[in-house]
């Protein structure tokens, strides 16, 4: 056992001959909220997808709870306890909200636990209970994002990864999502890795922050430190 639930060491990803991620290392402490910020093409999503074995890692290792999961297939990683709500949500648009949620629990066998978590996500996002029989694709963007997070939670993850949950949402809804993320972290003790372009949401939610630029970590530190960091300021606030 280690005190970090997730540790990515020297990750490198290449798509053909182009380098998507040059060298990224990051850690998520148990029970913590960590955010990864950076502009388009910085390699944020690729880092998550490589971690989940959705895209191939060229080099580097991934440890989850002290266990090497670098070469595990995606379904085993989910089963071990990492869930990713991907960028663009990737819901099953023609299935009902209910079926989407059940599919989130694909790797689980504990019926009672699944029922309990179903209740938990309904408490967290009451709107989903009202829309149980509605097709996921017919809901609004904010509701779809809630469903994506809820579906990821149905896997009962120890580490919940959220890729750009703010994408395309109204500021009010983004604040709401941020609140829910903190609530999940507090009530379930789930560690959270939040990948965001929206620094407002990222800084408001996380305790620790990594800033990426073209496939490298250019700055890291507590959110307070990063907020005043010159490199980050120049990149994000036009300072």
């Amino acid at each position, binding site marked *: 056992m280690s005190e970090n639930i997730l540790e990515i060491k020297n990750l490198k990803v290449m798509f053909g001959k182009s380098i998507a991620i040059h060298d990224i290392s990051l850690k998520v402490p148990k029970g913590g909220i960590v955010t990864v910020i950076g502009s388009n093409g910085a390699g944020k999503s690729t880092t998550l997808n490589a971690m*989940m074995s*959705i895209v191939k890692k060229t080099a580097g290792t991934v440890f989850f709870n002290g266990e090497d999961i670098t070469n595990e*297939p*995606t*379904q085993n990683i*989910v*089963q071990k306890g990492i*869930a*990713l709500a*991907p960028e663009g*949500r*990737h*819901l*099953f*648009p*023609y*299935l009902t909200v209910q*079926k989407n949620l*059940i*599919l*989130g629990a*694909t*790797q689980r066998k504990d019926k009672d636990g699944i029922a309990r978590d179903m209740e938990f996500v309904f408490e967290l996002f009451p709107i989903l209970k009202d829309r149980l029989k509605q*097709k996921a*694709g*017919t809901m609004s963007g904010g509701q779809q994002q809630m469903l994506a997070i809820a*579906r*990821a939670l149905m*896997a009962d993850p120890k580490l919940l990864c959220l890729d750009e949950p703010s994408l395309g949402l109204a500021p009010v809804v983004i604040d709401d999502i941020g609140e829910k993320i903190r609530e999940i972290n507090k009530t379930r003790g789930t560690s959270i890795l939040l990948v965001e372009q929206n620094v407002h949401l990222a800084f408001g939610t996380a305790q620790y922050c990594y800033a990426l630029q073209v496939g490298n970590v250019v700055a890291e530190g507590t959110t307070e430190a990063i907020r005043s960091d010159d490199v980050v300021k120049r990149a994000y606030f036009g300072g």
Partner: protein
Amino acid sequence: MNILINTLVLGIMYILASLGFAFIFNMLGTINLAHGALYMVGAYLCYYLCAMAGVNQWIAMVIAAIVLAGVGLLLEKVMFRPFLTNFDRIVMISVGLITIGQTIANILTGNKAMVIPSYGSGLTKIAGTSISNERLVTFGVGLVLLLAALYIVNYTALGRQMEAVSQDRLGAALQGININRVSAIVCAIGIALAAVAGCFMGAYLGLSSNMGDTMNLRILMLVMLAGAGSMNGILITGTVMGFLDTIFPLYFAGNAGSAIPIAIVVVLLLIKPEGFFGHELKM
């Protein structure tokens, strides 16, 4: 009455043969051009088991279905999985398979007329009309298999996972669904169903090396008419297709009988290119 039962028998066979094609189309996003050829291979295998090894035609059908299910697993592994993003290559391999299958069938058949032993003998009187038991049995077994397939798709975890994979592959992988395993099972079931349809049709209409082409054409039309992602649509278009193929040969001699249904389908597709029961309409 006879028209009705012929419509139903042909329709259900078309549907059975098409289901696997539609599964593969929806889940893997590619078309299995060799589906008709596999349907033919199933029929020939069944025939030779009966004729050479003296196996009962029912047992021969089951063996053919199991062997073809194995072929399905193999195809998924060597053809679909590695070349999923390479449509050209899948087409090349399929065409190769079709050619090999048909050539072997041609060498075996020559110009002999071969028929699989009937799956039912005698007649039954229903509402004043005599209907051959073979047709009733074909329809009955077809219906049972179809209902089983529908049950799997709509009410089991496998069916749910199939839907998930066909709607969003990345989303499905991230839920911990083993996409390769689900795809392999679906290929096996789908191609086994085609083999069963081949056995029945081989008993009903006899064997020929181009029976696969005829069926391939039906399958393509049916699935296009139904629209992508629609299971229930296939049931309806399959029945309509069976009806067209029953009714027109009665009134038009020779090739016109099979050309007119195709012409009708072409016109329907001109009106509604996305098909009649696809996702666009379900929303």
